[in-house]
């Protein structure tokens, strides 16, 4: 029998472990018991005491007042939410709080959206009986930060900001100083927001019940015409956002608490970095290159120009002289249309997308191991895991919301293994940090596998029931020499052994990986070895385990799902298989090519060789982001037609024949699929800027212009079309996606899938693969002359080439790319902090400002390519993953010297 208790003398059933507050709220709604220090995404704290209720053990018996938020319900007790003394108590508390709070509600930014105000109204404080005394109304505002603001005269000491900073973000910037009446919030060492270690996630501002902490966009003010729920366009976490729109413009963004992905949290990019969308730099009209100059044109002129030119090139050189690169930043629908346009309208398989340069090895490697190239589990599973293994990923910067959750895991003292050449934020809190030499992932994972086998920790039952190829694999691994591996990786083998044991003995272990795994010549192999680790320990197919790639871009998963790669069409079906081809032909009602298509790096080669004549880029800045910039520029120069759909005049757009002004995520609708296979609704908050069109609309226009009758762009009809061909989208409709989307595969009846491979693997049995470590050709060829290794990374404040984030306040927080260099290396070259350093590779040289840090080991350098002033990719190499052709951004042989900065690109 379930136990029960009474609320105001009516009997209700208790759920296990419930507090009085959750018990009351579950049964009688959120409004009945007022609270101030309680917040949906924070642990109970019990400081405001406004939630107090009377609890008696017998009906109308002697009662004790208890703070309902942290007191467990006693079975058969009688809870009185509004007894006389409780009503008086609440009134008195609020009255006391108001003695130290300015009563300037009418001019306060949170007027009408202030929890203190509404609680005061609800408990009915009519006057404040306390005589005037000392107060804190004279505290100064802090307006030092581009985003965060504080006005602590309005602080009510509820600790919500402090707890948000600790429990949600894990940054520990905010703290309470002083005690009693003198209690006050302090940022770092009593700094301003700007000087503090604040990462501007805004969790404190959202948590603050008043306007004591807020932001420059006044996100909590109720001034808005409408609020639109959509999905963030930056990383692959897929945070849900609530966009406030005022007078047709985006006013501010907050994170909805009921979002399954981000539970009311997001980072400074999602929350604050939106002002790029109507930046003066936005391209607002199509541009056609005439006499060497990009000149404004009408949409009709641009479409006609492109259609004519493409038709001409196709007639002259055949359809394979045309290629398209789609964008993992665009919606599923737009990606689907792009590949459909290239395949069905142009008639070639020359379609690829930017997943090529990030997670193509993940898709390929996991397909080979398990049969499906996607995360096996959900981020939610972090709640159920005992051990996390993070390889080649810096989630606190690159996937901040997931990163914060991983950091919380580490902060709680749960086993955390980080494999990374840099001492990342997460590595600082990790149980084991295996700081390997860049490019030696395969050797290191082989070591872990070796020790799991020699320690006899393999999951025998799982291996025999659900996998194949183990015996072969095992005998190969056992032949390895650990001393040699230790030398290759530079990591103490005893440490690796301990980490391997920790991973293998954890009841549930979950792995995460990022571009530090994929952007290597052995990227796909590394992904398969990570899969081996999961298989050998049986960590797959249930809650709290699995292999979980941290997708770089918002829709990397989706772009690949939609068929934006040469060898697989929409739904990952083999584009080179004549049987399957028929299926596509029937569906697209056109003949679809069977010939092999080009991958991105091959497109550049083909262009330089004169075989590729036309290239269509949907929002892709290949010049700044693809490796070996000079080669990419040569490829662009050699084209007869370069069409670029863009928001801004990017480095690539400067080489375009035609530029079509696209629309940003705030101006379009569709769906994105995040890193955990969750298809979520993107809904336009504002109309596209005058003169611009959504990328989907552009695709539809050009398809029609070239004789293919495609229905007008609309996410609902597009999703219907997609679900007709993509098997795992079968049950997806625009309407049933709801607020939190669905994780594919979605069955016809609409049920979705949180965990893959629970009963069987997509390929039947999972397969063990074995690979030897092989030094990158870059090091073999250039390692002697260029003894340093530079590895690229990412900073929290900027996103990829920074076209968007550099046009927001983020640029005031992080102003430039810097070169991380170990103190000993710096000393050897007489480099001081802040000096310009010339970094030279076989391809070229760039100048970057030095930042001396022991986050990198001696001999290793690291930097970002967020700013075109540096154009780091001038020095990166042509080496690629042997299987998926993902470029090796992470290992570049370079030399350094102190410089005066003459190689800095002049803007």
């Amino acid at each position, binding site marked *: 029998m379930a136990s029960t208790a009474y609320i105001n003398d009516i009997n209700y059933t208790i759920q296990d472990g419930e507090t009085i507050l959750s018990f009351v709220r579950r049964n009688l709604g959120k409004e009945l018991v007022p609270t101030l220090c309680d917040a949906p995404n924070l642990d109970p704290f019990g400081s405001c005491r406004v939630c*107090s209720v009377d609890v008696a053990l017998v009906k109308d018996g002697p009662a004790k007042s208890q703070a309902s938020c942290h007191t467990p319900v006693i079975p058969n007790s009688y809870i009185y939410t509004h007894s006389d003394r409780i009503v008086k108590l609440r009134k008195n508390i609020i009255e006391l709080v108001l003695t130290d709070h300015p009563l300037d509600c009418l001019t306060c930014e949170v007027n009408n959206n202030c929890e203190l105000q509404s609680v005061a109204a609800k408990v009915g404080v009519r006057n404040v009986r306390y005589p005037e005394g000392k107060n804190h109304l004279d505290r100064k505002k802090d307006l030092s930060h581009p985003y965060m603001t504080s006005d602590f005269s309005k602080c009510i000491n509820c600790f919500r900001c402090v707890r948000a900073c600790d429990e949600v973000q894990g940054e520990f910037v905010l703290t309470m100083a002083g005690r009693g009446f003198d*209690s006050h919030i302090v940022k770092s060492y009593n700094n301003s927001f700007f000087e503090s270690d604040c990462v501007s996630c805004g969790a404190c501002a959202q948590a603050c019940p008043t306007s004591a902490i807020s932001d420059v966009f006044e996100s909590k003010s109720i001034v808005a015409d409408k609020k639109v729920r959509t999905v963030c366009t930056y990383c692959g976490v897929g945070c849900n956002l609530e966009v406030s729109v005022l007078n047709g413009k985006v006013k501010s963004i907050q994170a909805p608490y009921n979002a399954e992905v981000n539970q009311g949290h997001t980072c400074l990019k999602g929350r604050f970095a939106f002002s790029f969308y109507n930046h003066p730099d936005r391209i607002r009209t199509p541009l056609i290159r005439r006499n060497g100059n990009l000149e404004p044109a009408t949409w009709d002129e641009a479409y006609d120009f492109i259609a004519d030119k493409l038709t001409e090139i196709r007639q002259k050189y055949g359809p394979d002289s045309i290629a398209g690169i789609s964008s993992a930043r665009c919606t599923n629908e737009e990606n689907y249309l792009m590949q459909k346009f290239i395949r069905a309208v142009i008639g070639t398989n020359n379609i690829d997308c930017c997943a090529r340069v990030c997670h193509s090895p993940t898709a390929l490697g996991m397909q080979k191991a398990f049969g499906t190239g996607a995360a096996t589990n959900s981020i939610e599973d972090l709640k159920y895991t005992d051990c996390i293994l993070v390889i080649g990923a810096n989630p606190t910067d690159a996937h901040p919301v997931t990163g914060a959750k991983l950091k919380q895991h580490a902060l709680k003292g749960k086993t955390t293994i980080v494999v990374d050449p840099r001492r990342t934020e997460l590595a600082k809190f990790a149980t084991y940090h295996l700081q390997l030499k860049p490019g030696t992932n395969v050797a290191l994972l082989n070591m872990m596998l070796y020790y799991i086998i020699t320690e006899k920790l393999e999951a025998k039952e799982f291996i025999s029931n659900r996998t194949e190829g183990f015996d072969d694999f095992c005998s190969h691994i056992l032949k390895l020499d650990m001393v040699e591996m230790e030398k290759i990786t530079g990591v103490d083998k005893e440490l690796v052994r301990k980490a391997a044991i920790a991973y293998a003995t954890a009841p549930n272990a979950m792995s995460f990986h990022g571009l530090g795994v994929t952007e290597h010549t052995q990227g796909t192999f590394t992904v398969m070895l990570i899969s081996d680790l999961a298989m050998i320990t049986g960590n797959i197919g249930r809650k709290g385990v699995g292999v979980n790639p941290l997708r770089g871009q918002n829709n990397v998963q989706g772009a690949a799902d939609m068929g934006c790669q040469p060898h697989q069409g929409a739904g990952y079906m083999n584009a080179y298989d004549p049987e399957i081809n028929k299926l596509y032909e029937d569906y697209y009602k056109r003949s679809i090519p069977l010939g092999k298509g080009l991958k991105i790096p091959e497109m550049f080669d083909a262009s330089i060789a004169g075989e590729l004549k036309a290239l269509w880029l949907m929002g892709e800045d290949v010049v700044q982001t693809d490796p070996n910039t000079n080669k990419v520029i040569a490829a662009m120069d050699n084209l007869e037609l370069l069409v670029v759909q863009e928001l801004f005049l990017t480095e690539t757009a400067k080489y375009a024949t035609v530029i079509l002004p696209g629309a940003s995520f705030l101006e379009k609708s569709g769906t994105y699929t995040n890193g955990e296979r969750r298809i979520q609704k993107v809904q336009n908050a504002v109309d596209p800027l005058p003169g611009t069109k959504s990328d989907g609309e552009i695709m539809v226009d050009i398809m029609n212009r070239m004789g293919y009758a495609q229905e007008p762009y609309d996410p609902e009809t597009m999703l219907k079309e997609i679900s007709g061909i993509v098997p795992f989208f079968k049950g997806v409709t625009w309407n049933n996606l709801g607020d939190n989307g669905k994780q594919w595969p979605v069955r016809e009846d609409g049920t979705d899938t949180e965990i893959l491979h629970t009963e069987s693997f997509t390929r039947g049995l999972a397969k063990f693969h074995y690979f030897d470590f092989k030094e990158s050709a870059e090091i073999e060829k250039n390692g002697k002359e260029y003894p340093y290794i530079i590895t690229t990374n990412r900073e929290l404040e900027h996103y990829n080439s920074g076209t968007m984030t550099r046009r927001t306040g983020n640029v005031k927080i992080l102003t430039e790319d810097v070169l991380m260099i170990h103190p000993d290396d710096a000393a050897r070259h007489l480099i001081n902090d802040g000096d310009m350093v010339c970094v030279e590779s076989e391809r070229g040289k760039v100048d970057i400002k030095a930042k001396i840090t022991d986050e990198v080991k001696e001999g290793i350098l690291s930097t970002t390519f967020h700013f075109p002033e540096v154009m780091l990719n001038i020095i990166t190499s042509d080496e690629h993953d042997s299987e998926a052709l993902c470029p090796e951004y992470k290992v570049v042989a370079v030399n350094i010297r102190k410089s005066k900065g003459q190689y800095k690109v002049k803007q």
Partner: protein
Amino acid sequence: MGRKLLTENINVPGIQSLSVYRQQGGYETLKKALGMTSDAIVEEVKKSGLRGRGGAGFPTGMKWSFLAKPEGVPRHLVCNADESEPGTFKDRYMMERIPHLLIEGMAIGSFALGAHSSYIYIRGEMMYVFHILQRAIDEAYEAGLLGKNIMGSGYDFDLYVHCGAGAYICGEETALIESLEGKRGNPRIKPPFPAIKGLWERPTVVNNVESIMAVVPIIKMGGDEYAKIGIGKSTGTKLISACGHINKPGVYEIELGVPVEEFIYSDEYCGGIRNGKELKAVVAGGSSVPVLPKDLILKLANGEPRLMSYESLSEGGFATGTMLGSGGFIVMDEDTSIVKNLWTFTRFYHHESCGQCSPCREGTGWMEKLLHKILDGHGTLSDVDLLWEIQSKIEGKTICPLGDAAAWPVASAIRHFRHEFEEYVKNPQNIKKDHHYYRVNNISPEFA
């Protein structure tokens, strides 16, 4: 003469040192304890009826038996030496004079609880006592009484002293634990209780200095024998720090059950009221417990004499009784202003409230301000009612008992001495302004 169990050797010259302490039979009880099973020790403490000497009076043996013992998780005994209650100074007195008694008690207690590392959390202001303790611990380590395999028993035990930073709140056990972990000393919400999740989320027992010291005679003489001392459920001896307007202030070890009247007036203890004055009121157990007027502190409501015991002092509830508390016995003579004295107490709680719970953070401040207003001669009758109302909204409404501690003095002063408040309000011209009052408020008498 009552029996002395803790202070028996306190006046032996050099008792601070290990050698003299051992000459007096020190650490023999530890040796005995190490030969017992831990359950047997806990059983003796249970039988002794020892109740927590920090103020709450919770049975120590029961507290020990509640300690969770999950496999593979270390446990800890923490000694609460953050003695900061105004009027209470017994722990400091004991630690500075006979530090090894505490160390021996800590070793026995930790052995009984299966703790291998334990902590003494000492009030930051008692820096010199910290050094005394540390010196004693160093001596004990050298002599093999602490550290690996103590006294050859195979039991490893490490003891640390940790200095607080000067916050009364850290005497509350969960705030103490937070502070010991290096965090801001804010109380934790309960459950979970420290016995389940205490220091570093491990099962922890927090005991007062005197409680831990009392374990030594209990094991030495046996729980049953100890329980014979005292009266009813108030067994054993208790240290009382007596202060105020008495002839002989100091720390006294009494057998529980001594009549209050005898304690105040006999030459063995306080020696009567200073300067032959009349007794006005007593705060019997540290500043937090209710103040009682002469007639209520000396006699129960039924006319029987009130005794120095847990039960007798609280007889009659807060209407006519008070609490034994921490044993801080503050005596006030006929010239004492209850209102001014209350203001001093309230100022303390205002200063020491951690600021976590709104009723206490704001309420303690307003209580002080209102008392200040009354003492300044600007008070009204409604201020007295407001004072009553604020205290009633603090008591039992906060995470930790500091709220209660701040509320009770106010409630009892108004309950028993309302006429005095009314006098201040009605005839402000009669308010005497003494030097102390002006100094604390940084105002000079002429501007008052």
